[in-house]
């Protein structure tokens, strides 16, 4: 039983990270109907910027907490700028182009960002400075660390903040209006360009935060780390119903837990026929089954077709 509990913790932490990244996908999709495939790379840039800034400050003799916080702030600022820049350069000129075109530029931007990061930070793995003290807890045979608790708590708070922003503020109202119908929102005095920029900037800030969490958790970073993470988060967003905030959160956590349980039990359940290397397949089977019965995802509303 303690294994089951431990696997749930593993999945919850992994899932919280997926959720935060998935929110970036879902916000942009909800408003523009565009899948920003470069979002995973924004997360990666966030992690790498934190490493550079925090390591520099630690070397300069500042305390860990200050260096970490400065790294986080720098990462969020850089990623927000990057998000704004991405929208401006790669997506805005194609606002009225056929739907597939921005999808291709998104993939293009993802490759460009990976290569820029490779040039700037090199090919080697980078170690993330240990910013938080290593405190281990043990409850009912399951081990977890302070970092894991922090990840789940911070993700939860951030997501709550985002929901407040979308449903309780004027900007949020403008976002929801633009999502429903950009032309009509424009006629009502909503500057849809600004709203779309805001969605990119906020999504990228969440991505930067997720990047810092991935960094503190695994303590390693690499210029290609964003690709798989982005793919998984995208899957989580689709699972929950892309375009839906609650869906992205639930989808992320669900995906994390499915993966952990899949890796933990698939071997025993199938009598050793399938091993733990099928954990990704396990997650995707769940995705396919959900989409077969609920094509718009778990929480998705029925909408017209959007690519």
């Amino acid at each position, binding site marked *: 039983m303690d294994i089951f509990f431990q696997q749930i913790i593993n999945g919850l932490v*992994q899932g919280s990270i997926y959720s935060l990244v998935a929110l970036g996908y879902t916000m942009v999709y909800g408003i523009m109907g565009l899948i920003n495939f470069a979002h995973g790379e924004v997360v990666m840039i966030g992690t790498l910027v934190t490493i550079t800034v925090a390591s520099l400050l630690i070397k300069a003799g500042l305390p860990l907490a200050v260096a970490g916080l400065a790294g986080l702030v720098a990462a969020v600022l850089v990623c927000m700028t990057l998000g704004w820049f991405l929208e401006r350069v790669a997506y805005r000129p194609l606002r009225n182009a056929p739907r597939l075109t921005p999808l291709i530029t998104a993939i293009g931007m993802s490759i460009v960002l990976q290569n820029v990061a490779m040039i700037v930070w090199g090919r080697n*793995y980078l170690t993330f400075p*240990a910013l938080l003290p290593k405190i*281990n807890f043990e409850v009912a045979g399951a081990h977890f660390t302070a970092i894991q608790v922090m990840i789940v708590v911070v993700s939860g708070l951030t997501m709550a903040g985002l929901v407040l922003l979308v449903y309780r503020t004027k900007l949020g109202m403008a976002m929801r209006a633009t999502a429903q119908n950009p032309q009509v929102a424009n006629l009502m005095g909503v500057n849809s360009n600004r709203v779309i920029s805001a969605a990119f900037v906020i999504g990228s800030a969440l991505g930067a935060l997720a990047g810092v969490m991935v960094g503190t958790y695994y303590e390693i970073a690499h210029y290609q780390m964003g690709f798989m993470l982005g793919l998984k988060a995208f899957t989580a967003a689709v699972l929950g119903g892309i375009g839906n905030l609650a869906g992205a959160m639930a989808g992320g956590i669900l995906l994390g837990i499915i993966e952990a349980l899949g890796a933990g039990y698939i071997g025993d359940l199938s009598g050793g026929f399938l091993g733990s*290397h099928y954990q990704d397949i396990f997650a995707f089977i769940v995705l396919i089954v959900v989409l077969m019965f609920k094509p718009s995802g778990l929480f998705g509303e029925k909408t017209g077709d959007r690519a």
Partner: protein
Amino acid sequence: MQAKLSAIALSVAAVLALGACGKKEEPKPVAAPAAPAPVAKPVIVVKLGHVAPMTGPQAHLGKDNEYGARLAVEELNAQGLEIGGATAKFELLAEDDAADPKQGAIVAQKLVDAKVQGVVGHLNSGTTIPASKLYSDAGIPQISGSATNPKYTQQGFATAFRVMANDVQQGKALGEFAAKQGFKTVAIVDDRTAYGQGLADEFRKAAEAAGIKVVATEYTNDKATDFKAILTKIKSKKPDLVFYGGMDAQGGPMAKQMKELGIKARFLGGDGVCTPEFIKLGGEASEGNYCSLPGMPLEKLAKGPEFKDKFTKKFGTEIQLYAPYVYDAVMVMADSMKRANSVEPARFLPEVGKTSYDGVTALIQFDQFGDLKGGAISVYQYKGGKLEYLETLGGGVAEAVKEAAQATGDAAKAVASAAADATKDAVKAGTEAGKEAVKAGAEAVKEAADATKSAVEKK
């Protein structure tokens, strides 16, 4: 239009002439191979292909390999090696296979089309094996400095060689080492690549033969960062030891996550995790764990420290892993060309098999499969953020003789090398018999697998 074109042609000619004037002091033999001047020896360009991942999670190792090859090529060019009456000018065609078997075959074809005279690489067994067929069909000699999966040389290709002990030797040594350290139970994890899986399978055989119980078998992939789920499962089986068949980029974080989950077991891995990168990534969790490397530690080899100095001086970075082996691979290629007095693959290929080259990593001689003869395996322990040499296992007879020779100086060296040759001949018979047995075993396993497969298909 016509006038304009001829004007351009004229000016181009003028520029060329000017350029030629500038270089007058040093006549370029390529331009004038027929020149009777005694200085102008003809130059023959030798194209060597090098393939390793330059992108992806193993890019740091790929770059390390390329540095090794570059160092060798530059030294060869500085020496001005003479082959077939011409000065050989080596050119390195470096390609990226991203550690992906599909990409590996594509760049292999590219090198074949570019008519390279030889190939050094690839880095991974998974890319080397499919690529070796293309090189074999084209008759291009291939020497890998790091592909350790036994299958590479067992396909019957006359062009396939490696300058490193294979995983049968390494897995066996690791299994014996684990038993000697008193480990009773082990969990085996591999990354499902040809290398990881191959090494894990060989380790399992050796460990079981030595009386160690395998309590869990888990898998990951060569791009993963999270191992908590499989480690949690392993924890419930309470092994003394976790063996990982895979690379440092996964091994380091795995060791770290083992510690976080409160797993007390030791970590053991092969050459893929025996790198400075592993220590960097594993942090203090790497402390006290073990890994193995084919060959002897660089510091203990006659030319090792010198190579290390040259490398760090030239590239301003420390050696990750396979650079010295790749360096030797290039040198063996050049040495064979020299002995054949030809750069034609068909002419110098037979000479590669007859190599007896005193390289940085070992005295390189190949058996009839193209495997390194008498490959030794050294075991290391991570201690205080460094790899500490523990012992050398298996195939070490010749190596030990060689080491003794270094200690007693040049005169003794000559005697000892004669002795080494004699020992090796004696050992050879034994090794080859062993090899046959292994091969037969592998075939039996393959047959069994085929049978299972057809049974499954029937179902």
